[in-house]
């Protein structure tokens, strides 16, 4: 059985390089989260997404703004 789904913040990226920049930036800022395979609801392609708690939204937006990390999209969804 799969885990019970929880509402999370999911950030997708155009490239793997952007996803790696995100992980590094969040780690440096002490913001929790982790890289996961992109859920199929968002894309059927290869790729990684940043998965975090929804309450980190503003903090994450700030980090991305500061580090100029371009997102593809930002979702709140159950994963």
């Amino acid at each position, binding site marked *: 059985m*799969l*885990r019970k789904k929880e509402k999370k913040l999911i950030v997708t990226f155009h490239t793997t390089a952007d996803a790696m920049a995100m992980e590094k930036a969040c780690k440096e800022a002490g913001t929790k989260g982790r890289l996961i*395979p*992109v*859920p199929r*609801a968002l894309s*059927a*392609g290869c790729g990684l997404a940043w998965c975090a708690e929804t309450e980190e939204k503003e903090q994450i937006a700030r980090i991305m703004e500061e580090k100029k990390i371009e997102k593809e999209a930002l979702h709140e969804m159950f994963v």
Partner: protein
Amino acid sequence: MIYMDNAATTMQKPKEVSEAICRALSVMGNAGRGAAEGALSASRIIYGAREKLAEFFGAENASCIAFTANSTESLNIALKGTLQTGDHVITTVLEHNSVLRPLYECQEKGVELTILGCDKKGNISLQELEDSIHKETKAIVCTHGSNLTGNMIDIEAVGRIAKRHKLLLIVDASQTAGIYPIDVQKMGVDILCFTGHKGLLGPQGTGGLYVREGVKVRPLLSGGSGIDTYNMHHPDKMPTALEAGTLNGHGIAGLSAALAYLEQTGIDVIREIELKHMRQFYESISRTPGIQIYGDFSAKQRCPIVSLNIWDYDSSEVSDELNMSFGIATRPGAHCAPLMHEALGTKEQGAVRFSFSHFNTEEEVETAVWAVKELAKR
């Protein structure tokens, strides 16, 4: 961590490989640039690897082997370097994007492309292949083994068809080199594209292609070659013709050590272990409710790959769960093989791929069986 993503890259390498790379980092100059000890040392190491690969693939001689960074580079060279406007080329839905995307580019430049479909088990029909040949057909391009289903194509049989119709046979051996014996002359292969970091157990950034003597391939790159400096054009002699610029000598030193390991251990021994793992895994889960496995497991020859889905679960979620709760590394999603996913009807769901190494143990396979069965419980 239990690593079962060996079709992506073999993460566990023989220790000789890292030792060879470390040694090379301190003794290698630039191959073919001068005759000082460092340059010669690099030339010798690279030539040694070239000779080993020639022998490994049954090539006429070492000069038939050119080094590249990976299969993708090799395939781009092979396809863009042989196909021209007006040519017809035949390929299959089993192919990876490293074959399909260069072919689509060729198609935009006026190459006619036929893509053979497959049956429910993911196999192509050789009859359909032969029936697709017409007077403009220049080449057949196909994989030796699907990276998604693990199904293999009988290259020797395709080679006979290619020979009968005087066509070039270009083969993508990414999933089979180092696992199945490949004899390019016996199989009738004109260009063999391979990568160093999968079954050959070398480092990433190594790979190459075999080009049959007499087959002309236009290079993708031109530049420094260490020879023929005052020629305005890049030399057309193999292997220099396809090796502009400094080679990844340090990586090739590692690949050479990996080839020595394969020779010493025996790829037959390695393959038997990997296929045993695959069978053990397949047979333990194939009748479990909710588990859908793709590919042809009745075939005598196949790659040590099992791709599956559990119920209608997102393959990304399953793979993530295998990773987080069971410590098992697999690959989910689309596997850069879009047409194979379409043929299997897994475009939306993707698939979770387990691919085995001879370094895996029976216990690890048992753990994977248990994990998959746990996830399939309702």
